């Protein structure tokens, strides 16, 4: 009896996660995918491959780099290296999410499987909403959101591929700009630890700085350098505050 009860509520949480497709972050991501679709049309990549890429790579920045590698006629090794370097950030993102997500009995294989659905939007969404979900249903909630979001975008990309070529430049420009503006507001809005604000500020400065110093490894260096500095600064500030009477 208990098992039936539990199974039903797991399904209910999966569906609650799936309803996240109607949230602001999901809508913004879909608009960004429309923008990405326009890029692939310009690059001359056939629609079936764009749909395949959406499902199997998922992270939008990685796909943009993959498409530009294909466009420039890069070799497999060069393209692999460029995408790998740009995707290192997925590791700390997943590592920060896993302790929030897993229950006491969550098997590792399930986490490995679900990690595929982590990209910036799903990460920001999950870090924001998951704390309000009972711990033993968090995996179901995230699975519902992640799977629905990927499937919806695969369909979207297939449908809009033939429509996006004629977008006026003003619309294309605004679609592109949605992504950074959305990331900024939602990270600030969803931050539950003071270190997030400091890291956000340090990363915004470190990104361009390292792009100027070492453009091939800029994101990686900005993340590790800026993030470590932000962590250290917040820690000193915190211990001083705790030491004060």
């Amino acid at each position, binding site marked *: 009896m208990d098992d039936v009860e539990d199974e039903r509520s797991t399904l209910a949480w999966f569906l609650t996660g799936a309803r996240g497709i109607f949230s602001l972050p999901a809508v913004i991501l879909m608009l960004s995918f429309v*923008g990405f679709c326009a890029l692939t049309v310009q690059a*001359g*990549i056939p629609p079936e*491959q764009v749909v*395949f*890429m959406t499902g*199997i*790579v998922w992270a939008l920045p*990685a796909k943009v780099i*993959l498409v530009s590698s294909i466009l420039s*006629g890069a070799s497999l090794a060069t*393209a*692999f290296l460029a995408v790998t370097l740009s*995707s290192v*950030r997925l*590791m*700390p*993102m*997943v*590592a*920060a*999410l*896993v*302790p929030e997500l*897993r229950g006491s009995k969550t098997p*590792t294989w399930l986490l*490995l499987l679900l*990690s595929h659905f*982590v990209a*910036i939007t799903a990460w920001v969404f999950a870090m924001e909403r998951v704390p309000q979900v009972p711990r033993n249903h968090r995996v179901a909630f995230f699975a519902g959101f992640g799977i629905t979001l990927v499937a919806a975008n695969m369909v979207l990309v297939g449908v809009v591929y033939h429509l996006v070529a004629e977008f006026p*430049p*003003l619309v*294309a420009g*605004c679609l*592109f*700009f949605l992504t*950074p*503006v*959305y*990331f*900024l*507001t939602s*990270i*600030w*809005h969803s931050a539950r*630890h003071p*270190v997030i604000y400091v*890291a*956000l500020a340090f*990363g915004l400065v*470190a*990104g*361009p700085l390292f792009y100027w110093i070492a453009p091939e490894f800029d*994101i990686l260096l*900005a*993340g*590790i350098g*800026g993030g*470590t500095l*932000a962590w250290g600064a917040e820690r000193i500030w915190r211990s001083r505050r705790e030491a004060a009477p």
Partner: protein
Amino acid sequence: MTSTDGWWAYAFIAIAGWLATDLWRWLGVLAGKRLREDSEALNWVRAVATALVAAVIAKLILYPTGVLAQSPLWLRLGAVAVGAIAFFLARQKPVAGIATAIAVLAIGLWWLGF
């Protein structure tokens, strides 16, 4: 054989796209499983993950691709600044910040003849 032909195209996407990204996600799961939710190590991982995403954001705003590459930097920075003011005035409602920033950008692009 170019990379947009037949099965090779799919193999190319699978190796250079899927393997190159999921590799890091899997490593993230293995690392994250060892982290306690209240530990200082997780705090550091959070800071690094956030700074990485922030660096991506800064690059998208400062060095955009496509149409925006031709737009002036002051317009993009101005749109973000006005959007940030609206965000804080509206008691940190994301929609307010996003809508304002996009509206400022759209008006600017239109005024510049895009």
